[in-house]
Structures are given as C-alpha cells and as structure tokens.
C-alpha cells in the first residue's frame, strides 16, 4: 500500500460525504440527528433528501428507537450524534431495539476519543468500542481516515444488520486510496514485516505509519495492520501475523480495558500466547486540550508506539 498523504481531512466529513453517496445510491437510506447536523456533517444529506432526514432534537434514546422503527418499515437509518451519546447514553436502547432485535440500524458516532479536544472528558468517550463489541449482532467499525470513513459508511449502508461506526473530529492525514472499497471484517495490511505485529485502528493508524521509518532505522522490521473492523475481528489475519512476528503492539484511541488491545489479548490467550504492549488510555478520564496535545499527554503518539514496539520486541527475546 502506498503511504502518501493526499490531504488533511476530518473523518466525520468522510461520514458526511459517504452518507450523501449512500443516500444517492439507495433511496432507503435515511438520516437522523439529535441536534448535531453540522457536527456530524449531515447537512448535505439533509439538503439533498429533506424528506429522508429526521431532526429528533436532543433526545438520543428516542432517536435510536425511531431508527429501529424506520428499519422495521424497510429503511436503512443512520443516527448521528457524538460518540458518547451514541453509545453510553443509550446502550440499553441499542441493546434492545437494535442489537437484540437485529435491526438494520447504523449508529454514526462522531468526536470519539481524546482528539475531540477542548470540550473535555464529558464528551471524550474512551469506552464505546468496548461497549459495542459486547453486543451480539453488532458490527463495529473504526476507519482510519477520510477516505476510509467514507467507504466504511457506504459499506455500512450495504451491510444488512446493526453497525456502530466510530470516527472523529479533527483534520488528520488522509492517505488510503480514494477508490478502495471497504471490506467489513477484513483487516488491512499496511506494511508487511517480521519482527512485530502492530495492530492499530482509527486515528492511531497514521501515528503507527509515522513510527515505521523510525523503527526501520532501529533495525526493527514491523508489520502494520489496520484493524478497521473491531468486530467481527479478522482473527485469521491476527494469528497469521503473530505466528510470523511473535509479538504485538496495539494502538487505539480508547481505554485499554475493552478496546482493540483487549480483543487481541483475548485472541492471543485463546490461541497463541505472545507478548503484547498496549498503546491506549490507561484508566483515566480525558481533559481539555488540543488534539495533538492530548495524544501526546495520554501517550497515544508516534514515540509511544515506537517505545511500545521496542518493549514488545525485547520481551520476545526473553
């Protein structure tokens, strides 16, 4: 995969543009928002398909219930609000009328993680992936850049079943090919390597890419795989990579507990126990700051990935 930055764009715009495209392709696609049309970049969809756009007000629980109803009526609803209010606020509702009832509802969750920035901890969800992956029937997607988020949105619309789609607020490197289709459940090989397997998702994929030349310089030949689908996890790809490299680093904008790292730890423990290092938030709440400051503060940055790799590789040797 060519790793060139095409531009800097927010993943939420990838969602907004993907939703518009999905709406054009399929008249059954409808959108809902809880007073966050602009933040979720759903304005273009709302303008193009006003009768297929539902403004629910600040009532997230009601929104997901309405979405389930629209799905029963044959529609493909995308609900849009901040990630925390897309998950923590309405988990029981999602569980009952979406996951357990197995409705074709897509939950679009923006402003996830600490890169939400200045709004601070109340809005910075670091628990949503952990929540969603516990729900049977739920597909959990965490695309890494604008292009991939757009493609993931289109794929979510085409997928039959509940989907949780997580993305973010800040402008970040947009580097995956614009024309690459999104295959749910298929891990994306970014660079093959032999010494360590790096599994990353979301904004941290780019941070991991930035770590690759540094690691190379140190003589570490890292394999980097983008786990854009947290669930269903591409267990085969994970095990194949680890069988080759013998140690693992995971990188994500999420709590350690419940995140991608825990998913990988489970796969390893059940199949092939190997050393693992986690780049993730370790049991503390977020805070106000700029996205870059916060990534650094919470040790979610490129140097942290480098350090984690060094540690993982060294643990392999003992």
């Amino acid at each position, binding site marked *: 995969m060519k790793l060139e930055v095409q531009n800097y764009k927010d993943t939420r715009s990838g969602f907004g543009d993907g939703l518009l495209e999905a709406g054009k392709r399929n008249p059954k696609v*409808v959108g809902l928002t809880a007073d966050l049309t602009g933040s979720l970049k759903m304005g273009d969809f709302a303008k193009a398909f006003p*009768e*297929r756009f*539902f403004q*629910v*007000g600040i*009532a997230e*629980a*009601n*929104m*997901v*219930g*309405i*979405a*389930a*109803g*629209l*799905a*029963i*009526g*044959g*529609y493909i*609803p995308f609900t849009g609000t901040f990630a925390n209010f897309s998950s923590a606020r309405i988990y*029981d*509702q999602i*569980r*009952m*009328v979406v996951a*357990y*009832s*197995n*409705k074709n509802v897509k939950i679009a969750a923006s402003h996830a993680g600490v890169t939400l920035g200045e709004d601070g901890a109340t809005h910075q969800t670091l628990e949503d992936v952990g929540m969603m992956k516990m729900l049977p029937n739920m597909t959990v997607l965490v695309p890494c850049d604008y292009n991939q988020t757009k493609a993931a949105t289109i794929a979510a619309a085409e997928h039959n079943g509940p989907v949780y789609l997580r993305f973010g607020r800040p402008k970040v490197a947009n580097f995956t090919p614009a024309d690459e289709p999104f295959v749910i459940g298929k891990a994306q090989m970014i660079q093959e390597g032999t010494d360590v397997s790096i599994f990353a998702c979301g904004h941290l994929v780019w941070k991991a890419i930035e770590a690759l030349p540094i690691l190379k310089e140190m003589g570490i030949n890292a394999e980097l795989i983008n786990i854009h689908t947290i669930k269903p996890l591409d267990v085969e790809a994970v095990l194949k990579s680890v069988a080759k490299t013998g140690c693992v680093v995971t990188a994500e904008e999420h709590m350690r507990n419940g995140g991608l790292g825990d998913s990988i730890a489970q796969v390893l423990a059940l199949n092939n126990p190997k050393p693992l290092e986690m780049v993730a938030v370790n049991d503390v709440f977020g805070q106000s700051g700029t996205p870059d400051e916060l990534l650094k503060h919470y040790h979610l940055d490129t140097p942290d990935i480098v350090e984690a790799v060094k540690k993982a590789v060294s643990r392999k040797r003992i």
Partner: protein
Amino acid sequence: MIIQINLYKFAKENELTVLLDNIMTINELKDVASQVRRDIIRMVHGCQSGHPGGSLGATDIVTALYFDQMHIDPKHFTMDGAGEDIFFLSNGHISPMLYSILARRGYFPVSELATFRRLGTRLQGHPTPVEGLPGIRVASGSLGQGLSVACGVAQAKKLNGDNSLVFCLMGDGEQEEGQIWESAMYAPAKNVDNLVAVIDYNKKQIDGPTDDVMNLGDLKAKYESFGWKVYKCNGNDMQQVVDTLNITRQNAHKGQSQIILAHTEMGFGVDFMMGTHKWHGTPPNDEQAANALSQLKETLGDY
C-alpha cells in the same frame, strides 16, 4: 380481501388468512377476552413465572385492537407490515396477553402457548422478534422504549405512502421513564398523526399504587401540554374501548397525535387478583389457578 367468518370456527381452526373488518359483536369480543384471560392464567401458572396482573387488565384493549380494529393479515406476517396496521407492546412484561391474542388471531398455533418462558421457546419472557415469532417486530421489556419505535414505524409508513395505522400500548408506571416524554414531545412536533397510543392506566406498578411510588399527577394534562389529543375510557368495558378506538381511527391523519388513557384494573376478571398490585409479577399456585379459571369462561377451547 375481507371475509366474513365465524369467529369460533376461525379461532379454533386457526388457518384462514383473514382481515376481520368490524364483524365481531361486543359479546363475541368479550368471549375472546375471556379465553385470553384463561390463557394468561394457564401460561403463567404453567411456567410459574410471568406477569398476570397487568396482562389481565390490558386484555380487553388488545383484544379489541386485534379482533375488531386492526387491518392485519396474520397468516402472512411481514416484518415491515406494509399496508397493515401495526401494534407494539411497550410494556413487554405483559407478554402472555399478547401471545394469547396473537395465537388466537392466527399468527401461530395456539398449542405453542404451552411453551411460554421455557427453554428454546419463541414465546420469550419478554417479546422478541429474533426467535421468529410471527406478530413480533421488536423486543420490549426494558420499559420506556416502545413509543419511540412506534413513532419510527409511523414515519416509515408516511414515507411509504401507506395509510395504515400504528398502535402502541404502554404501562402507566412506564410513564415514569424519561424516554416516554422524549417521544411524547416528538410525535406532535413532527406531526405523527398515524399513531394511536394507549396507556394501561391501572394506577399500579411493582412496588404499589403509582400514587405512592411516583405520583403521575394529571396524565391527561401532561399529554395535552405535550400537544396530544387525549381520550379517556374504561379499558375493561369492551364497548367503551371499541368506541374510543373507533374515534381515534376516524381522527387519524388529521394532524394530531392521539392517546387513550384506558382506565383498567390490574388483575381484571379474577376477583382475588383485583384491587392490589401483588399480582404484577407473581404466578398463581395450583389452587389459585383453579380458582381463577373457575371465574373465566372457556369460550374458544383451552390450548
């Protein structure tokens, strides 16, 4: 397709595809309700769990809906219910009432009522569509969520140009859940006028009378202040129930969200289950079940 049929034959044989269209007399509806009440007692007694009190109280309303009001096609159940009226039970704990009515109306074999709450059943403790039970479109049981789903389906019907109606039954204790008021605010604001909500207004919940647990105050004033057209009726008087539902059907599609406060009695039809909240979620023992059944006429044949 509208077929005039003999109710008893229909319910016994349970095989015709029918759209009943106001063909049943009030007495015939009462007979169905009596059988449903028998089914409820026998189901909760059979598995020694479940919620007889609310089920018995709400029986008349839902019987009237399925056997008099709703345009439905039980033999060809579709998830989207296109062209059909749709019912949601938000207070999912009174599932035995719904299961009995669905079975008696022809959605699935009456004999299946015997599996209620047993391992592997399609008749889960709280309704769910995932086991493939015809007649169920969404899970309920966690209170407060049904009206939201009903609003969504109602809006889907509008998008589809489908003039049929959506009904939703809720508990009165359930009104204490905030989500109810989110959808209560939503429906009138968004012109959801193809929806009729009904509250099983039995003034009781698990811990006691709603007046003690959480005084609901003036529910009529509440819904009116939220923009609804509010009706009252005696929810255990079949004639009143049918009359009130008729009015709401006539007033549908006229720019107003409608709700009926159906005053019911928890445990209605079984003397010792009335006047108390004790039977909200307690099954009768053998003796109590026999006593209860002795008070309820068998009209369509027990399962």
